[in-house]
């Protein structure tokens, strides 16, 4: 099986700090992969290099066999990567429907009916039907996170990168989120950066653990849970929380 996304010796230093150091990662089509690690492990820097927000110091990023290391962010999105921000980033003053329409329109073009149908379908999936005309800024925080997710889905990506999607969500909202991600199986691959271990263990096919910029371990959830090094570095105190 050939990988959808691969990185080879991907590295980034900020001054003398090695934020990410020679990371090799292979993610298959349709796979749900979680990327975990303590704060400051380099997770956000790593995914920022995947989407093109941060330029690597060295190493390569391959998507569907093409070297995309030097491509600008918008070109990567056109190839099928989508990214949702850790800190909610929506078009605050525009209506909810227009936020999603902007995401859908790049793919569907000027076919108004198709865009409207996609907007309705996507908002329905994340449970925001009925809020189309509200300005995004007037949504609650949890609903803004869902809107962000809807904007990712409306792009029909082949790889959806979710940067801490459940941060700040209530328990029922997290349940909704988990159910939604399960429905995406087979539709798109997902790279999930997440602190909530319950979410990670339940959703991920495989887990990659990053610590101090290097890959500490990689494997199935059960294996990661049992890995002594991971427990020492990260899970130790949080596993039962």
């Amino acid at each position, binding site marked *: 099986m050939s990988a959808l996304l691969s990185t080879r010796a991907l590295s980034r230093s900020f001054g003398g700090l090695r934020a990410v150091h020679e990371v090799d990662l292979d993610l298959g089509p349709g796979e749900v992969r979680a990327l975990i690690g303590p704060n400051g492990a380099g997770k956000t820097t790593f995914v920022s290099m995947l989407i093109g927000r941060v330029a690597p110091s060295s190493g390569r990023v391959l998507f569907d066999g093409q070297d995309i290391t030097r491509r600008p962010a918008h070109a990567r999105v056109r190839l099928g990567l989508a*990214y949702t*921000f850790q800190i909610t980033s929506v078009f605050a003053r525009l209506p909810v429907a227009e936020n999603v329409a902007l995401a859908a329109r790049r793919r569907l073009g000027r076919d108004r009916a198709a865009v409207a149908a996609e907007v309705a379908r996507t908002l329905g999936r994340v449970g925001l039907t009925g809020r189309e005309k509200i300005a995004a800024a007037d949504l609650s925080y949890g609903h803004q996170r869902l809107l962000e997710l809807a904007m990712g889905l409306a792009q029909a990506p082949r790889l959806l990168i979710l940067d801490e999607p459940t941060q700040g969500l209530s328990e029922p909202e997290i349940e909704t989120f988990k159910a939604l991600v399960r429905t995406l199986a087979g539709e798109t691959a997902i790279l999930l950066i997440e602190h909530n271990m319950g979410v990670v263990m339940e959703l991920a096919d495989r887990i990659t653990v990053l610590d101090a910029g290097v890959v500490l371990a990689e494997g199935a959830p059960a294996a990661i849970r049992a890995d002594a090094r991971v427990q020492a570095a990260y899970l130790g105190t949080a596993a039962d929380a």
Partner: protein
Amino acid sequence: MRGGRLIGLHLGLVAVLFALNFVLPAYSHGTVARVMVLATYAMGYNILFGYTGLLSLGHAMFFAAGMYGLAMPMTHLGLGAGPALLTGIGSAAVLSLGVGLLALRTRGVAFMIVTLMFSQAAWLTILLAGRWTRGDEGVVIPQADRMLLGLDLSDPSTRYLAALALFSAVLFGTLWLVRQPIGRVLVAIRENEDRAELLGYDTFRHKLGAVVLSGTVSGAAGAAYGLFFGYAGASFAETHYSIFPLLWVLLGGAGTVIGPFLGTLFMFYLIDLTSGLTPAYMLVAGVALVLLTLFAPQGLAGEIRRRWWRGLP
């Protein structure tokens, strides 16, 4: 249907302006003709500032590029008014492409400063080329040359209708543009450029397109101004001619199609009426501007949109 109502509103404005041609007294008739050309300039500015969110402090260079791109070939090469209108618009298009490619390497305040500096350079160039441009004194385009398609543009009524034709074309062009997917992307860039980039839109190219379109429309207004009123002078390239469209758009409502016209008209008549009452008319104008900024920060049309008509583009 909302689209119908919108087109109705803007068609209504054009119809009122057309009717005014036949009823306005001579003085106001000339003023409104001037306002329509300058409102075209403001609409060009609004594409970049109001819709794309890029604040330029140097649009006078595009207005002047149109004006001199028309006047120079007419004066020195004997070019007819029609072709000269095209060289004027073309000059502004080329200049805005060059300036856009360089200035868009910056953002925010730096973009304001860079456009201001380019505009100062353009103004000084006009003064330095005094042998041809006659500097501050400017060049007069003789009445006999101001013929376009057999129409005499020195005739007040013809001039008024020509100004209305230009104004209407740009008004409906803007209305069309901002309802197109590409216009929506410009608004998205204004609201959150990083997000627009990560939805797969090439934001640099969209911003460059907005600079060129905005500069070209401003240049068309400058060329028309020179042709309609028979004069091109360096004062049109000075800084205050970069500030005017910003004020007009802010007053009328940035990011609204009809706002630039309302702002230009309001400002013109405010100064006109108060200057008849008191020598301190600029003080009155200043106070009116401060009040409007305090109580209607989104401008006249912006306030209409906020209170009564949320879908107004």
